[in-house]
């Protein structure tokens, strides 16, 4: 790392600290949310600097994209242009400067010193050495879908649980889409959606040998769905005449569990694929997991169970 790189890192760190402070402390909630989204995007740059391109993709798509969409639409409902009623949540007085600022700085310093002394983890050589048997060429994908596939199974389980929890809170609010006077957004949504699908498919295919894979792909596809929703499309996720889309919500979890149990019954360990079919198994898992993640991110964005028919009148319990 040369001098330019170090200066870049320092500037990036200062910007991130400022944005994090704004996200938690800005008087205006809208400003806080926008700061958080920009924080997520700059974090993606930091991940690239730290040689973690997979995380950069996921952070940009999920951390900044999906979370940002969720936060902005929640903000639209929570603060109906009520001005700055939450202003001044924190005020510095003399005691703050004398007592708390030094204490907090000491805590941050102690944390840094403790983190600096942590030993380096030693699984890199093991993971790289076993890469040939895993069925894929990219180490992170191998860890996610082969070596530590149990984590991924549980993670998709958490996402399914989140969707169940959100849907069980009652019917979705009626207006998912803003009242849009401009015809540009629906047109743009329709034009862009195929691009979203294409990018998602590319990321999914790329995951077997390079940074990419089911999570960024699912997030991009889910973001495309959210864009269509914002452009005025009806969520047909539950309607009977459009086919079994709803089953895809749990398909990723179900297929992963199926693969794990079949592997265990065939005499191997839980989540042990025979080396001969490992790459095919991972491909199937990745495609179903990606589609599930896309639809689940879309499902939690609805913030309630969508109605089977589009125009029923709703009542809240």
């Amino acid at each position, binding site marked *: 790392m040369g001098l330019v790189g170090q200066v870049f890192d*320092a500037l990036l760190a200062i910007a991130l600290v400022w944005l994090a402070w704004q*996200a938690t402390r800005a008087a205006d909630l809208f400003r*806080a949310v926008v700061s958080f989204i920009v924080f997520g995007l700059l974090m993606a740059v930091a991940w690239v600097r*730290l040689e973690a391109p997979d995380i950069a993709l996921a952070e940009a798509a999920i951390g900044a994209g999906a979370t940002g969409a969720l936060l902005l639409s929640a903000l639209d409902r929570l603060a109906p*242009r009520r001005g700055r009623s939450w202003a001044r*949540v924190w005020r510095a007085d003399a005691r703050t400067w004398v007592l708390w600022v030094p204490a907090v700085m000491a805590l941050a310093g102690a944390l*840094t010193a403790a983190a600096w002394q942590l030993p380096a983890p030693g699984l890199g050589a093991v993971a*790289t050495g076993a890469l040939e048997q895993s069925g894929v060429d990219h180490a992170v994908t191998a860890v996610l879908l082969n070596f530590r596939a149990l984590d991924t199974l549980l993670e998709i389980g958490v996402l399914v649980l989140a969707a169940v929890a959100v849907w069980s809170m009652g019917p979705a609010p009626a207006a998912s889409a803003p009242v849009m006077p401009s015809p540009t957004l629906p047109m743009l949504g329709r034009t862009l959606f195929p691009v979203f699908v294409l990018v998602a498919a590319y990321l999914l295919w790329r995951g077997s040998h390079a940074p990419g894979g089911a999570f960024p792909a699912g997030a991009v596809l889910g973001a495309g769905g959210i864009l269509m929703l914002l452009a005025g499309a009806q969520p047909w996720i539950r309607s009977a005449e459009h086919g079994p889309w709803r089953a895809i919500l749990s398909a990723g979890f179900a297929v992963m569990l199926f693969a794990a149990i079949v592997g265990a019954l065939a005499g191997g360990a839980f989540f042990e694929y025979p080396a001969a079919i490992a790459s095919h198994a991972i491909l199937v898992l990745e495609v179903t997991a990606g589609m599930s993640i896309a639809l689940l991110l879309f499902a939690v964005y609805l*913030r309630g169970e969508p109605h089977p028919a589009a125009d029923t009148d709703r009542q809240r319990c």
Partner: protein
Amino acid sequence: MLIYLALASVLFVIGLHGLFTARNLLRRLLSLNVLTTAVFLLLVVIARKATPLDPVPHAMVLTGIVIAVSTTAVALALVERIALRHSPEPEPSASTRPGEEDA
């Protein structure tokens, strides 16, 4: 390298401070997200110390990002329901949305 460790510590403290002191629930959720990012940053910096690069913390962070967005989604849905219950009277601008004010 050290700068990213320091960044992780500072972000951790900012997130913790916000989590404990913010009154507004949405703000508290933002602080929680900053806090998780700090933990992810620590994991990735530690992973980079190893030669060759350790992919396991990277996979853990990818898992963590999805868990964080799940948590955020459920918490936001809860915060919205709480806000609907506790809003004193529906504002005129809010009544344009059917189904919002009859909580």
